[in-house]
């Protein structure tokens, strides 16, 4: 009985939808294939980003006039493409580059997607973008660390997020500002987990530091699944750098903060490079011992009433957690792709590519603190930028750059004191 009533409802709905469609001839949906780690060691990041994309889809495909200048929010679907909706197909590469390659083939040839999106692990972005290059299908890299994903001469690869060298340059500008205010920043320590993410960012920071005359007192690469980081904290204690920069995943970031407390070592400032420090588990795990820790984030929830605040509310209603920076950057890259799909006005790959090349989003059209979205000839967004935030109480507050800051930088950090 229940089944039949469901069936009836579905039939009625189908009739209701198809009736106007036959009149208006609504455009076919545009398909985007998404390749992510939904199981395996990076599953948490993949799952959080998946929820973020689902929120983005809601915003794009339904009317959300309350979201200000955010492109495609006020309208239903893609107005330029006859009101076409975007549908996505989520897939799970399990952290395996050859699975990512296989999924790209499947999505392009089997599901006939018009664009691809992914893939978090640099290894998987390498192999999946190569497939889209061979088939001539645009690939938007939402978030992957390795610098050379763009810049391999690929025509079809774009990346909406800032990359390691941008972050490194940001830290240096921040240090220069702090020095002007009389803080002492002569030596830094770089502590990085040793997979593609940590290695790429650490190398970029070291290079920038050299250029800016800041000496790297010690580099501490470690494995993210370490159960004990006390020896590493003691190594830091010995070198006593002015700032320690951590490029870490979640469990290890928490473990480092707790171990520093246990060994009574507090550098003047700890800067976390996003990822682990932005994970919603981080603050509840360490708020008692890591007061004043700084973090990079291009995502700021903002005050009630702002567009970003409303987006966060939508995300929170879905997942029960605040939107984190990694997922937010994925979401922003997805908006940039949707904007291009809209301007292309068709599902022809060449036209979508041309629209991506012509992308020029202004800061007021973004949910992130970028200066815009504009791709150079390698496909890299050159206007991507980032904020620095600082842990005060149970939340991060935006403290740098000054033009966007909601609070002042507290230097040195308090830790547990």
């Amino acid at each position, binding site marked *: 009985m229940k089944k039949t009533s469901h069936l009836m409802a579905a039939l009625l709905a189908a009739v209701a939808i198809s009736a106007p469609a036959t009149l208006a001839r609504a455009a076919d949906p545009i398909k985007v294939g998404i390749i992510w780690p939904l*199981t395996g060691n990076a599953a948490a990041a993949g799952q959080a980003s998946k929820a973020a994309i689902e929120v983005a889809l809601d915003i794009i495909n339904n009317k959300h006039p309350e979201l200000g200048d955010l492109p495609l929010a006020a309208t239903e679907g893609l107005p330029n493409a006859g009101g076409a909706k975007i549908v996505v197909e*989520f897939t799970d590469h399990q952290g395996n*580059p050859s699975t990512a390659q296989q999924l790209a083939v*499947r999505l392009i040839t089997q599901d006939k997607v018009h664009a691809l999106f992914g893939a978090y692990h640099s290894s998987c972005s390498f192999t999946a973008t190569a497939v889209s*290059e*061979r088939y001539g299908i645009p690939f938007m890299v939402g978030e992957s660390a390795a610098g050379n994903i763009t810049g391999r001469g690929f025509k079809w690869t774009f990346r909406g997020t800032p990359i390691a060298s941008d972050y490194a340059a940001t830290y240096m500008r921040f240090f220069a500002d702090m020095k002007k205010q009389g803080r002492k920043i002569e030596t830094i320590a770089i502590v990085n987990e040793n997979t*593609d993410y940590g290695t790429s960012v650490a190398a970029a920071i070291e290079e920038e530091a050299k250029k800016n005359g800041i000496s790297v007192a010690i580099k501490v690469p470690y494995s993210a699944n370490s159960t004990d980081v006390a020896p590493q904290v003691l190594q830091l204690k010995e070198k006593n750098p002015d700032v320690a920069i951590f490029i870490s995943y979640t469990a290890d970031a928490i473990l480092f903060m707790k171990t520093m407390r246990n060994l009574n070592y507090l550098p003047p400032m700890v800067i976390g490079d996003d990822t682990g420090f932005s994970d919603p588990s981080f603050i509840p795990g360490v708020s008692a011992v890591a007061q004043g820790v700084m973090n990079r984030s291009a995502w700021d929830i903002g005050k009630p009433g702002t567009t970003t605040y409303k987006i966060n509310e939508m995300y929170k209603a879905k997942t029960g957690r605040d939107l984190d920076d990694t997922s937010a950057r994925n979401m922003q890259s997805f908006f940039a792709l949707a904007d291009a799909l809209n301007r292309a006005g068709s599902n022809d790959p060449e036209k979508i590519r041309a629209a991506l090349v012509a992308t020029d989003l202004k800061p007021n059209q973004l949910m992130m603190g970028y200066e815009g979205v504009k791709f150079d000839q390698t496909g890299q967004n050159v206007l991507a930028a980032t904020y620095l935030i600082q842990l005060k109480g149970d939340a991060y507050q935006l403290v740098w750059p000054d033009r966007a800051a909601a609070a002042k930088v507290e230097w040195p950090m308090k830790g547990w004191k």
Partner: protein
Amino acid sequence: MSRNVKLGILGLAAILLLYPLLFSGAFALNVGSAVLLAAISASAWNIVGGYAGQISVGHGMFFGVGAYLPLLIYQITGLPPLAGVPVGIALSIILAIIIGLPAFRLRGHYFSMATIAVAELIRIFTGTWEYVGAAIGLQGPAVGRGWWDLTFRDETPYYYIFLGVLAVVLYVTYELQRSRFGSYLRAIKSDERAASSLGVSVRMTKLKALVLSAIFTSIAGSLYSIKTGFVDPESGFGILVSVQMVIIAALGGAGSLFGPLVGAIILVSLQTATNTWFGGGGSGLTYILYGGIIVLIARYEPGGLYEYWQRISPRLWRSRRAA
């Protein structure tokens, strides 16, 4: 070989040869190539793990060497990755001798543990070594400069290359099985001391089997990295790479000629199917099913599925004749 078995082999060969014609989509071919690649490495493992009964859980070391060398040669010299295949084989042979000489003093679980330790050692070490790409890994030519780079958009050439290599591996294994060397291996597997007292040079025989196995595993690794165009420490030397070979061989039937092929067909299809159906949901159901089925097979068919097939196929045959 009985007539039935011969017919079975011919049937299997026909299906494998014609598969690209039956399923022409790129995805189906990609899965087909993945099955063949898994069958090659599991069959290679089978020589030392199945026939000689020396359960290595570290064969990823040979796979990884084979996978790294083509891309390394390409990165350094610009030569086509294919040029790295023989270098990879040579290195794998050397590695097999270095590992085999001491490790074959160990028996049973100790041998397995030693191979895990060495493979992990190589994996971690590779991840810290800048020259071979450290944690980020190595890439091949993304867009081929010519056919010799073996980067095809079409999946068919890969499929037939892999099928050809598999045929070679199986043929060598078949000859080996029938040779005197093969009977030495079986003697060692059933009772090392007895074999030794009968005048079999146990360590030398095991070492030869390991070298042969390493050669084919290395080739499998090279095929993997040339097709994928990428390798990093995890996908080359990772423990899952090693475990996968053991699981496939065990699932199909270790120590039988076609066991690894049967295991690869079933396991890879199972992996792909569960990931296609449930992967996008992200609930982890993929692995729950995958793990569950492995457990069930181990519980109810401990000898592997090939054994099961051998048990039921005569009955099927008879019933069909009767009908």
